[in-house]
């Protein structure tokens, strides 16, 4: 297992299309729910403990080799918003391209061939971690960190928020991320033995509603 490979995969500059997405932050800013560092922190904490938990469990399970088709259907079932499902698949397809070029592997090729238009992003993230020689905990961390760093970066652009404040928000979420990542690995191990039914189904209704409103906007900075 290579610690350096984790840095490559977790790097915000890893070319997998994430820069065009705000993780729901743009919709939250438009609705006046995120206005400063404190509300950004609340937004990210909420995301971390709802959709973030689900994504981390799925990524960790995929990294352990759980069936990608089952995991993908489980994500569909846990994502009511069609706009979010579409964004998740688009990001999954883009991550797959980058991962196959970076860590060529027959297993990744097989997942790509099952989903030519993209599997959900956490499924691909877990498969990419596996191809990179990383473990379930690494995949969970990557998923969780992306889930909060994307909105934080986006809010810097959307609100002109002080970038030091935004980075401080991420640092204050570190303990939460540690706990959620450890729990996600335990859940992922149970997915391998008991199937995807044991995956949590937490959701944040405002993220889903915001994603639909955002998708209908003619003028926006981020794709989702």
């Amino acid at each position: 297992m290579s610690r350096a490979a984790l840095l490559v995969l977790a790097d915000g500059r890893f070319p997998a299309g994430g820069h065009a997405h705000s993780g729901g932050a743009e919709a939250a800013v438009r609705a006046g729910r995120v206005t400063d560092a404190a509300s950004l922190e609340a937004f990210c904490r909420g995301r971390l403990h709802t959709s973030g938990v689900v994504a981390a469990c799925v990524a960790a399970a995929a990294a352990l080799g759980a069936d990608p088709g089952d995991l993908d259907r489980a994500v569909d079932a846990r994502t009511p918003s069609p706009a979010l499902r579409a964004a998740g698949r688009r990001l999954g397809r883009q991550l797959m391209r980058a991962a196959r070029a970076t860590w060529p592997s027959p297993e990744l090729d097989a997942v790509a061939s099952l989903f030519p238009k993209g599997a959900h992003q956490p499924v691909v993230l877990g498969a990419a971690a596996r191809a990179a020689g990383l473990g379930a905990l690494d995949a969970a961390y990557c998923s969780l960190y992306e889930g909060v760093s994307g909105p934080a970066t986006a809010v810097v652009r959307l609100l002109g928020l002080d970038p030091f404040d935004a980075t401080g928000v991420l640092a204050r979420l570190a303990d939460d991320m540690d706990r959620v990542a450890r729990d996600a690995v335990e859940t992922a191990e149970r997915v391998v033995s008991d199937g995807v039914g044991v995956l949590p189904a937490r959701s944040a209704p405002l993220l889903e509603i915001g994603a639909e409103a955002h998708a209908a906007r003619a003028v926006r900075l981020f794709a989702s």
Partner: protein
Amino acid sequence: MHLDHHLESPAAVSADARRPDGSRRALRIGLGGPVGSGKTATVAALCRALREELSLAVVTNDIYTREDAEFLLREAVLPPERITAVETGACPHTAIRDDISANLEAVEDLEDEVGPLDLVLVESGGDNLTATFSRGLVDAQVFVIDVAGGDDIPRKGGPGVATADLLIVNKTDLAPYVGSDLGRMAADAKTVRGELPVVLQSLRSEDGVREVADWVRERIAAWTA
């Protein structure tokens, strides 16, 4: 069938000249340059000039709207299914250089859905003088500046002006009104670009895009040779 091809091609395609099914992919030409220099107008003129002889499609990279894609649709330069807009998350240069995944996906989807294509024009969102395309996304790039942006831009250089495969100095018809010295612009461009070509054009004149269209035709001929 599609699935088998994926399994046979372990690496993800980007700059590969062949598509997964073995056929030659379309030539991809990027157009970049500052806001308002005439990138979209040049793309529209190229589509009109070339659409009878080539199978072509356009990818636009709008910054926060679908304005450029909608302009092309409104002008009806191509059927709507041949124009795709990519969203760039406030960073147009990232989408054409540092993280080209959304643009590659758009190009490949166009080839799948309306192909076979001879040419895909990838238009960048308006940016600054340092914006260039990745060689993983395009085979050749055009940088578009205009006389109204200041006649010192060629002298200032920058990666776009200095290294693009073709430099267009657009809106030459405006030169007398904004006090730009076309001779000086051409000479400065020559100094920073050496042998690389420069076209001074006005799309207001009859067949104003002819020189650029001819350059594209040469590129196509070299690509398919």
